[in-house]
């Protein structure tokens, strides 16, 4: 199996090259955010306030890590279900977000918005929090610290394994792969 190494931030040109089914290893800065942080960001946009991060060409990782043990920088850190962020994602894509990392299906509205804004959706193995933690090299809380595990963190990752599940053309592995094994 070939693995494509990618570096963040990812330009539109870089994103277009990825195809659903590609196995990748992500290195560079990514941002964490899940339910409560998304809600707050969208509320900020509604009020005309700026987002805490410039998401242009950046990737957001849907994760709420467990606490770090003494001497470590972060706890277990696997993906959470992406579908809960569907209500908020199109607005972030409009602000330039280049892609998302999570697990599970996305809504039609999100996929259409991804196609309009040339964004990629990566899936990683749910529950593999201990393994994925070892790819995280630094962690900094950027915003909404009061949200605890749901705060927005800037994290540096090295060779973070993921699969392109929905590409910029809207090809969706959840649909294409299942058909091959449906009896």
């Amino acid at each position, binding site marked *: 199996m070939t693995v494509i190494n990618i570096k963040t931030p990812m330009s539109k040109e870089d994103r277009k090259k990825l195809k659903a089914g590609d196995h990748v290893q992500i290195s560079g800065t990514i941002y964490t955010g899940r339910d409560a942080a998304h809600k707050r960001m969208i509320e900020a946009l509604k009020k005309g306030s700026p987002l805490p991060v410039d998401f242009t060409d950046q990737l957001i990782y849907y994760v709420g890590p467990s*606490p770090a043990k003494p001497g470590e920088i972060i*706890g277990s850190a696997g993906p959470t279900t992406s579908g809960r962020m569907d209500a908020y994602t199109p607005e972030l894509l409009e602000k330039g977000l280049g892609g998302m990392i999570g697990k599970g*299906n996305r809504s039609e509205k999100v996929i259409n918005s991804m196609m309009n804004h040339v964004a990629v959706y990566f899936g990683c193995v749910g529950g593999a929090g201990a393994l994925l933690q070892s790819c995280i090299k630094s962690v900094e809380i950027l915003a909404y610290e009061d949200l605890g595990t749901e705060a927005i963190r800037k994290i540096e990752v090295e060779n973070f394994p993921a*699969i392109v599940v929905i590409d910029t053309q809207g090809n969706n592995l959840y649909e294409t792969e299942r058909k091959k094994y449906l009896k």
Partner: protein
Amino acid sequence: MKTIQTKKIIDTVAEMCIEANTFLSEDMLESLRTAESSEESENGKEILKTMLDNFEVAKRRTIPICQDTGMVVMFVSFGQDLMIADGSLEDALQAGVAKGYEEGYLRKSVVADPFIRTNTNNNTPAVIHYKVVPGDQLKIKILPKGFGSENTSALKMLKPSDGMAGVRDFVIKTVEAGSPNACAPIVVGVGVGGTMEKAALMAKEALGRPLWMRNPLDHVAALEDYLLEACNNLGIGPMGLGGVNTVLGVNVEVFPTHIAGLPVAVNISCYVNRHVEREL
């Protein structure tokens, strides 16, 4: 009369919370190994291998298998001849959860009010179900329940005329809709009969039954086998990315019900399906 100290209960529950979140139970491990060797999809095989590798990392470094260390569900069998020496059983069980989640560096995922949503910061309260039984033993079973899978669960009040076919259909549709989000290969707990809440409770309890154990009633065991095969024919596969392993096990529990009803509840668990049991 046998007496038990609350400290013993607190310490035991704390240990169980950490154990359940860090180490995989034997039945789940065996079942995932079998899935890995039988998986036909290349993505699926790779994903199952990653899952097995992750268990090793979690065990070696004693960190949680998954960051979602769940909301704790507890089944407590309390022997009627047993006495708690120095306090409340409920308080001790809840204090044990708080201690385990603090000392084990487990994630605190519980909010105090479903609308206001402020974190309680110690993962309490746990949802505790009590049963008073003969004898003087205290049996505690804990299932830290992650919500990626919990959210894909469902309950329906079927009509008696829907029968076995209606139950099969509802279970399969629930699995089909939920598996990609629930971290497949999943475990499916099904409760049929009783009342609305009895069906839900049986579905939850069914998740804690070892995967190799079938329901002792022949027609229910046959339903379990049927559902396992039918769900694995859906093609959804590990993490929903295609394959022949969508479901690791289906456990069905039944209970007498009303002449007018056929309640069915489906509780879904991810492939980790954390459960630990101890007797004091």
